[in-house]
Structures are given as structure tokens and as C-alpha cells.
């Protein structure tokens, strides 16, 4: 079974992406732009992120939406 940790709720958007990036942009970051490993890691990941998303996922969400009990949707 899946459990989502309660602590996750405490994460705010403020702590997200931006802050981490800024911290890491500082020199001396072992995975920063001066690191070959860091650069390759981002290249590897960016390639995956930019992959075209198959239609099945949009279809899945539409199906989930249609399967919902008829209630008002905001």
C-alpha cells in the first residue's frame, strides 16, 4: 500500500526549485556547472524530460475524470 508522508504537507512552493538552483549555482557545488558529472546528469535528465509524452496519459486523465461521480467541478 501506498503511504504519503505527512511531512510532505509542510513543503511549500517557496522551498522549491528556485532556492535549490540558486544554492547550487554557487561555486564549489560538487554537482554544479563546473562539474563534469553535474553537467552530464542534467543533460541525461533534460533529454528524458523533453521526450514527447505519449497520448495514453492525457487519455488516462480524461478517463479518470469521466469516471468521477457527477459532482460539481470547480
Amino acid at each position, binding site marked *: *500500500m*501506498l*503511504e*504519503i*508522508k505527512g*511531512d*510532505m*504537507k*509542510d*513543503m*511549500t*512552493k517557496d*522551498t*522549491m*526549485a528556485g*532556492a*535549490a*538552483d540558486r*544554492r547550487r549555482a554557487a561555486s564549489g557545488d*560538487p*554537482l554544479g556547472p*563546473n*562539474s*563534469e*558529472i*553535474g553537467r*552530464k*546528469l*542534467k*543533460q*541525461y*535528465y*533534460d*533529454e*528524458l*524530460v*523533453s*521526450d514527447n*509524452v*505519449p497520448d*495514453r*496519459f*492525457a487519455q*488516462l*486523465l480524461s478517463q*479518470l*475524470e469521466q469516471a*468521477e*461521480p457527477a*459532482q*460539481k*467541478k*470547480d
Partner: protein
Amino acid sequence: MAAVSQGFKTDLLGSIPSLRAFAVSLTQNADKADDLVQETLVKAWDKHESFQPGTNLKAWLFTILRNEFYSQMRKRGREVQDSDGIMTARLAVHPAQHGQLDLKDFRGALEQLPEDQREAIILIGASGFSYEEAAEICGCAVGTIKSRVSRARTRLQEILKISGEDEYGPDAISAQVTGSNAA
């Protein structure tokens, strides 16, 4: 159960590229990764009420995906990651040419890492999470994430035959690599 809002649905759709990238990083297999993303979306939909608007949706979704990945692994009993042998074929790593590591070699090296180290270095070095966020996602201490990232980095350097970047700095590294090729 309250209806899922359009905003939530839109955010889910927008998260799919990141979820797929993380799933591929974990499973090292495109088909398994997409199945994992599908499971994650269904679970997120069912549990949407436990998500608090304004908090980090990406981290919430990554947590679901990761939990799903490990629960599937437990169910199946740990199968060997590289069942096809496709990955192994890529593992012959040659010294980098022109100071540039080949992405294929890098992928091969990443595959050799234990899952816990691979996910840590991906979350920190590629997905843009902080150490604190990565610790939340993995359900472990910040120090554990730090040591996993550090071990992952050391191991990648060993596999890829990159000398310690700490000691020499990037300029010395590129000089070294290009120098060895020129010789």
C-alpha cells in the same frame, strides 16, 4: 469524495514529463517507467484530497512514484535490473574524447549505481530538489541523502575514469583529458 479540480488535473498533466524522467531514472526501462507513471497518476487522482494546495505538487507526486516503484520491486522480488543485457553492452567505457564524456557512457555508468544512490543523485543533481526535499521524498534523513549523493558521485567518477574534480578543479580536468588524447 470531492471532485478533482481542473487545476489539479492541469498540474498533473504538466508534471508528466518530470515524472517520466524520474521513472526512467529509477527503472532504467522506458516501458516500466511509463507503467509506473500511469500507476502514479491513478494513485494521485484517488488521493487528491490528501494533497494540500499550495504545497509542492512535484515532490508529492515524486513521493508517490517512488513508493510505488519500491513496492512493486518488493512484490516482484528484486529482479535484476538489467534483465535484457542491453545495458551491459554499453558499459565499456573509454576515456572521454575531446574532454567530453559521451552521454551513452554516462547512462551506462548511472545504471551501475545502486537504486538509492541513483535516485539521490538524480533528485539533487537533475530534478532540482533541495537536500531537505529529497530527504522527504525518500523518507530518510538529510545526512543520508548527502552521503548517498557523495557516494554516487565518487562511484560515477570511478566508472567514468574522471579524476577527482574536487582536487584539481574543472580546468585541470579538461587539460588532463585533452592532454591524454593528444598524446
